[in-house]
């Protein structure tokens, strides 16, 4: 198939509301064989890929259903590679640290391009242990951080309460991760959508049901999009999309329930930075934002595509939050949320080309999608323009599962 045929395929049937959209593109169109990109999924991975690809001069269309239930809209927005470190997942943590190092410049560029502030806060994270057993776990985590060269500081219980006076008196000790920040993922999504639109990204509101070997994307509404390259970025919802070959491992939905809360007007801040706690073996966090919102979460449950809010899930979050910061009882609940994190078999994201020519993945970000957004954008831009991944992302190549 030659380039001209591909160009003709781009919209075999025009999607509603996008007729003639190619003429609205602000960037110069070109004849490169890779120029027409369809991104399936409008979460952070999809949106950052679309924006970065459009900046490279590619003609990008994002496909997202109107009832999309992206994990990005639920996430708390912790940028915390140090306090997320797990034994055996050191390379993932290094990639997280790398992505965190891109964040300040990424946010500055994105806010300038979109005009949308994304609520990036550089106030660090305090991780505390509630009892003696929790402290032993935290001690192991701190040793891992030291071994990996992550600058964190071990604090006594008294020092923790000096930083965060609302912590329960029983807190035994903690670790201050000064470089573990936060962002508001909903604003980040809005900013990426706005920046994408400015860069010429098209939108199709529909659900992708199949991607063929010739890179045609069939939509639930009956329409078909043609493309030179397709990026699958639909999180665990991608499991339902038919592919020419099984190039994606099943992404398990890992359910998280959390609460969005707000301090009553005029109150002093409850916490000054992200506070994570281990409470009798159970993890909990409070993520404060400039506008007074505090996100309290989260469960981690393996229940398939179950998106129910449960009494047990919310109780667990509230029980632990109340133990850690007794003052949470004064918070107003503004929203109870549930989302499905896309978990790959090794918890690592799947990025870049697959063995189906032209079909890419930006999926499987599990707990780390917000943190990995800048690095994902960088990796996917290179994947779509050069067919390869930059060195920090190479380990997370989408075709690593082929062996």
């Amino acid at each position, binding site marked *: 198939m030659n380039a001209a045929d591909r160009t003709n395929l781009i919209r075999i049937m025009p999607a509603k509301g996008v007729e003639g959209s190619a003429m609205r593109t602000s960037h110069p169109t070109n004849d490169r064989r890779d120029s027409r990109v369809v991104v399936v999924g409008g979460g952070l991975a999809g949106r950052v890929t679309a924006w970065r690809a459009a900046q490279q001069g590619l003609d990008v269309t994002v496909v997202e259903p109107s009832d999309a239930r992206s994990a990005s809209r639920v996430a708390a927005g912790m940028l915390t590679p140090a306090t997320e470190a797990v034994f*055996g997942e050191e390379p993932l943590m290094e990639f997280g640290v790398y992505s965190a190092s891109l964040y300040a410049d990424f946010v500055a560029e994105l806010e300038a391009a979109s005009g949308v502030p994304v609520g990036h806060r550089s106030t660090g994270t305090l991780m505390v242990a509630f009892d003696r057993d929790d402290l032993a776990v935290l001690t192991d985590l701190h040793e891992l951080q030291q071994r990996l060269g992550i600058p964190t500081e071990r604090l006594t219980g008294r020092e923790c309460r000096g930083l965060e006076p609302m912590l329960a008196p029983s807190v035994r000790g903690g670790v201050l991760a000064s470089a573990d920040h936060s962002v508001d993922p909903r604003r980040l999504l809005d900013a990426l959508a706005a920046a994408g639109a400015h860069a010429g990204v098209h939108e199709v509101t529909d659900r992708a049901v199949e991607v063929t070997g010739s890179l045609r994307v069939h939509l639930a509404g009956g329409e078909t999009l043609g493309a030179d390259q397709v990026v699958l970025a639909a999180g665990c919802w991608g499991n339902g999309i038919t592919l020419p070959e099984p190039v994606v491992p099943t992404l398990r939905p890992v359910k998280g329930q959390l609460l969005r809360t707000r301090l009553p007007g005029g109150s002093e801040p409850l916490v000054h930075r992200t506070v994570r706690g281990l409470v009798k073996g159970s993890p909990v966090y409070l993520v404060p934002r400039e506008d007074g919102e505090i996100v309290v979460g989260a469960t981690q449950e393996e229940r398939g595509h179950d998106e129910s809010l449960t009494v047990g899930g919310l109780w667990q979050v509230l029980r632990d939050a109340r133990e850690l910061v007794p003052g949470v009882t004064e918070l107003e609940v503004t929203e109870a949320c549930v989302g499905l994190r896309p*978990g790959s078999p090794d*918890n690592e994201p799947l990025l870049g080309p697959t063995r189906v020519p032209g079909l890419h993945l930006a999926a499987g970000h599990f707990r780390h999608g917000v943190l990995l957004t800048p690095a994902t954008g960088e990796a996917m831009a290179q994947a779509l323009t050069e067919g390869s991944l930059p060195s920090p992302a190479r380990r997370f190549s989408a075709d690593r599962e082929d062996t």
Partner: protein
Amino acid sequence: MFDPHVDDPFTIAGTAFSSRLITGTGGAPSIDVLEEALVTSGTELTTVALRHVSPTQEGSVWDVLRRNKIRPLPNTAGCFTAADAVRTARLGREALETDWVKLEVIADERTLLPDPVELLEAAETLVDEGFTVLPYTNDDPVLARRLEQVGCAAVMPLAAPIGSGLGIRNPHNLELIVEQTEVPVIVDAGIGTASDAALAMELGCDAVLLATAVTRAQEPGLMAAAMRDAVRAGRAARLAGRIPVRRYAQASSPMP
């Protein structure tokens, strides 16, 4: 290397197993790490919490068990009453098409110790409904006897509280349970490291069930190998017959 004296199969409700290490899945950092640990351990029977991993979960531990031909043993972790546990067991039977259930009825969140009254009631109900019941129980010989009497297929006394890694706190009680029990005795919960598993087998237990000792170790695969070998070593030592303990030295060769 297969050794007929060590790798003698043991049987639960008519099903023979050559591995005496039964594993749980809670606490693993990822599916891949869990799979490596389970395969390395050589386990043939693995328990999964029905309340924590739904049988409909895609890409989950259930898939790992299926592709490695490990028999699933659904459990009722997270249940606090007999009625709760019975309901959960029924859901598991329907979803997984197995009558086997590891019965857990927990008294409180702080200790996760079994509630003996609720446990016995749930065991009786489930046995009557045709389940093959493997109850997680206290290291109480009387309760173990009652569970056997109502028809449980094994008794599974704890070494120490779930997830504590404290090792065997009351070896004497375990010995009493082993002595009196006809069905298999499986030590369940509290194992911290390989020597704990070996000791359970030396005391005469038929098998060891453990989860977080492996899944939360810094290198789960390596700990799985250690547990596999410890269970075999402990079993061999039990069959071999240890020497009597003496208070004073006895030269291994006669003094000249």
